[in-house]
């Protein structure tokens, strides 16, 4: 059973907004080490920031500590990110796009986050598994 191992970054963060910065630094370093460009690192980090900010800010019904797992894999011409949390069920693939043509006064103050995730990523799939949300993001690397 000989098989080339794909590079993997696995990190667990707490439900605390400053943790997103720690995760971003790890993703940046990982992307640099494995020859993925700054554009890929920025896209992945922006998508993670938007999703994790939602989860940490609105996802928990208690004020307790929770852990969120992030696994980033490189291979098959893509970066694949799996996010797993025990927040309330939330499927971002079902969120409607905001009206990007609305004038200033009609722009909703929120609601852009998931749109940005869609624009940054090439694929997003959601599963609810027991008490956990599992979101898989893919970004083509073109190599």
């Amino acid at each position: 059973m000989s098989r080339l191992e794909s590079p993997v970054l696995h990190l667990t963060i707490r439900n605390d907004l400053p943790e997103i910065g720690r995760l971003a630094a790890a993703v940046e370093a990982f992307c640099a080490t494995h020859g993925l460009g700054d554009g890929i690192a920025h896209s992945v980090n922006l998508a993670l920031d938007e999703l994790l900010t939602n989860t940490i800010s609105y996802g928990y019904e208690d004020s307790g500590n929770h852990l969120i797992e992030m696994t980033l894999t490189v291979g098959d011409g893509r970066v694949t990110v799996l996010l797993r949390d025990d927040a309330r069920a939330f499927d971002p693939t079902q969120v409607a796009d905001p009206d990007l043509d609305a004038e200033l006064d009609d722009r909703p103050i929120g609601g852009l986050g998931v749109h940005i995730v869609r624009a940054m990523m090439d694929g997003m799939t959601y599963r609810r598994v027991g008490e956990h949300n599992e979101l898989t993001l893919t970004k083509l690397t073109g190599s």
Partner: protein
Amino acid sequence: MEITRETISGVAVLSPVGRVDSNSAREVEEALLPLFDGTAPVLVDFEALNYISSAGLRVLLLAARRSKATGVPLALSGMSKAVDEVFKISGFAKLFHIHANRAAALATLGKA
């Protein structure tokens, strides 16, 4: 986060440094929105900014509304490629007066 505040040629210039995300957006909000209580035109210079998320866009949207309500002009300048991309995909580019750099913005705002 670090935010540089200057007054240049009668224009209030605010320059956030590094990242504007959900963690730091409030600091930008607290520095930026009170400027619309004054009379000087406002320039947010992104020259030293390499990252913005929707939390940062939210603050800029609030600023644009304050600008419209008070008549205090607002412009943006110095966007990096990453910041420009986020503005474009969010449909924000058309909501703001955006200049390539600080000098160009000051030349326009100074006449406002």
